[in-house]
C-alpha cells in the first residue's frame, strides 16, 4: 500500500498518497486550484504559474511540486488570488484577445479564469503585438494572436512515432508555435480534433467548421471554471 501523508490547505486537513503533486492531492480532496498550462495526462510543466500556491513561506507551482507530509499550503487567499489574476491580466494584454470575435469564446479557459477572478479590465497596458495567422494546414488553422505559449499542443500532440507535430520557433517575445509542415500535412482527423480541444484558448481552430456550439450551451456560459470541485 502506498504511503499516506497528511497536509493542510488553507487550514483544512487533507490526506494524500506520497509522491503525487500538490495539484493532484488537492483535486483528490475536492479542492480547486486554477490551472492553465496543465492538462490531464500530459507531463506538468509549471510554466503559466496560475496554480501558484504558498508553502513554507515560498511560492511554488502546485502542478510540479510534490506534496509532502506535514505541508501547510495557502491556496484560496486574497493575496494569492490577486497574483493569479495579475497573470491572467498579463496574458490578456500581451496577446490580441478579442473575445467578441473569437470562436472559442465561452469555451476558452483563459476567458473563464478571467470571469472566475472577476477581471473587469487588465491593470497593465495593452501591447497589441503583431502576430501571424497560419492557414497553411488543411485541417487546422492557427491564430497566433490568441496563443498563450502554454505548450499544451507541443507536449501532447505526437504522431505514431512520438514526434511532436507542433514546436516552438524563435525565442523570447518573438516565440511562436509552429506546425511541422510535413507532420502537419499528415495530421489525422483524430489528432486535428485533439489539438483543437487541447488548446485552452482559440489559437488552434478546426477548418471548415465554425461557432459549433450556440451561445448558452458553451462550457463556461453558466458555471465558473472549477465548479466541479466542492471547495
Amino acid at each position: 500500500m502506498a504511503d499516506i501523508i497528511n497536509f493542510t490547505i488553507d487550514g483544512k486537513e487533507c490526506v494524500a498518497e506520497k509522491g503525487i503533486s500538490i495539484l493532484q492531492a488537492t483535486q483528490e480532496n475536492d479542492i480547486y486550484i486554477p490551472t492553465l498550462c496543465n492538462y490531464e495526462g500530459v507531463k506538468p510543466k509549471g510554466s503559466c504559474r496560475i496554480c501558484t500556491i504558498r508553502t513554507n513561506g515560498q511560492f511554488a507551482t502546485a502542478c510540479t511540486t510534490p506534496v509532502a507530509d506535514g505541508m501547510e499550503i495557502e491556496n484560496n487567499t486574497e493575496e494569492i488570488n490577486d497574483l493569479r489574476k495579475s497573470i491572467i491580466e498579463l496574458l490578456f494584454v500581451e496577446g490580441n484577445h478579442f473575445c467578441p470575435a473569437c470562436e472559442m469564446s465561452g469555451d476558452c479557459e483563459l476567458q473563464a479564469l478571467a470571469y472566475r477572478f472577476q477581471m473587469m479590465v487588465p491593470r497593465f497596458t495593452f501591447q497589441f503585438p503583431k502576430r501571424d495567422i497560419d492557414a497553411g494546414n488543411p485541417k487546422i488553422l492557427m491564430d497566433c494572436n490568441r496563443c498563450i505559449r502554454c505548450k499544451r499542443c507541443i507536449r501532447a500532440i505526437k504522431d505514431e512515432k512520438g514526434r511532436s507535430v507542433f514546436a516552438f520557433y524563435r525565442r523570447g517575445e518573438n516565440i511562436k508555435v509552429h506546425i511541422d509542415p510535413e507532420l502537419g500535412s499528415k495530421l489525422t482527423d483524430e489528432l486535428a480534433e485533439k489539438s483543437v480541444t487541447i488548446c485552452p484558448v482559440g489559437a488552434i481552430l478546426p477548418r471548415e467548421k465554425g461557432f459549433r456550439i450556440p451561445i448558452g450551451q458553451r462550457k463556461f456560459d453558466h458555471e465558473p471554471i472549477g465548479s466541479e470541485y466542492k471547495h
Partner: protein
Amino acid sequence: MSKPVIATATLAGCFGCHMSLLDIDEKILDLIELVEFNKSPIDDIKNFTKKCDIGLIEGGCCNSENVHVLKDFRKNCNILISFGECAIMGGLPAYRNPIPIKECLEEAYLNGPSVKGHNESGIIPNDEEIPMMLDKVYPCHEIVKIDYFLPGCPPSAELIWNALTALITGNEMELSYEIIKFD
C-alpha cells in the same frame, strides 16, 4: 433632492452598447424617473449644459476627436464608466493596432481592391477639418482615469441597469456569474 444627471457618448464604437442600454425596455420609464439625461445621443444634447454625476463611454479612442470628447467627459462627469469591450480594450477597431497607421491608410485609400486605380492623384485625406487618426486605437482608461468598467459586447441590459441603479441608490452591486461576459 435633484435627480442624478447622466451623460453618454459613443467614440470608436458601433452604438451597440447604447442599443443595449435601450434594451432595458420598459425600465427606461423607471430610469427617466430616477435620472436626468444631459449630453447624449439619446436626447441629442450636443454640449454639456451642467456638471454630470455619471458619464457612460462606449468605444475606444481612434482619433483626436475621440480624445477631445473623452477628456470633456472626464472634466464634466464625477464618475466615468467604460461600457463595452471597445471602451475597455479597443475592440474591433483595435484590429488595426498591430499594423502601422501608414500601411492602414495606404490600404484604405491607395492599394485596397475597391480603390486601386481610382485614386489617380494618390491622395490620402489630410484636411485639418478631419479628426487626426491616432497611431492606434486606445482603450479609454489609457487616456483618462476611468472609475468603473462594464464588460461585454455589448454589456447586457441587466448589467447596465444594475450598475446604474447601484450607483444612484448607493447600494452595493450584485455581480452574478452569468452577468459578466466579454462577448
